[in-house]
């Protein structure tokens, strides 16, 4: 029997890798993929809790996370296309339009 903590550690590692990709990459598409990676890490931890605590609610929550991820991907990619039409770049450090 694999302990529950192994799954949580795996989810932690994937989440940290997603944070790393989001904070260090220039390409905005890779940044969005890092967000998907973080949502997947949360899903792994939710499903493992659902299995080890013998409760279905974790899987329901993870279903909602997948819904939100799909909506977020559609909106985010539409924003990327609109940005690319105006600036013709996919690099975040060339998009400093809203500088305070």
């Amino acid at each position, binding site marked *: 029997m694999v302990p529950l903590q192994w799954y949580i550690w795996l989810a932690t590692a994937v989440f940290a890798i997603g944070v790393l990709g989001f904070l260090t990459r220039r390409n905005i598409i890779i940044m969005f993929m890092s967000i998907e990676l973080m949502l997947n890490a949360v899903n792994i931890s939710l499903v493992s809790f659902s299995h080890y605590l013998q409760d279905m*609610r974790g899987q329901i929550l993870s279903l909602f996370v997948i819904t939100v991820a799909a909506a977020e991907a559609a909106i985010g990619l539409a924003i990327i296309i609109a940005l690319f039409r105006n600036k013709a770049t996919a690099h975040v450090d060339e998009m400093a339009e809203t500088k305070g």
Partner: protein
Amino acid sequence: MLPELFFGYFAAAIIIFSLIVVTRRNPVHSVLFMLILFFHIAALYLFLDAEFLAAIQVIVYAGAILVLFLFVVLLLNLKEETLIRRYINQWPMGVVFAVGLFILMFISVRSFLAGPKGEISSVLTGQSNVTNLGTVLYTEYLFPFEIASLVLLVAIIGAIVLAKKRLKS
């Protein structure tokens, strides 16, 4: 012994592929490695007795979201992407933050104690995963389910409004 080996292979593959995804120079390669990553995560869900979520993972993530990413990557035509630097200038700060976050969460999970057990699962009710999931989703979580459909509707309308060309008036 065998479950640990199975988990070890899939955990190692998931971590290695996610590192590859965030470090590739070409976004198309990142998307394709992410496809392999999502299949490994689906296998992990099967291992955790969540068959429906494994199917949803393959259909929605690998089938819909990644194809959307691939479309956008090909639409933007990033030829110069493969020639210039990948990371922003402040990347050491990002590495420090991510590693610190990982260490913090790793230490805090070590002292984790599981809560009380729930009452609905395949082991307890003797029914299949999908039956249990549908029972809970359409009774206890009916209202959040409706809100999820509203979220998807807003996403569809928002994507159309954002991506369409401005008409000259």
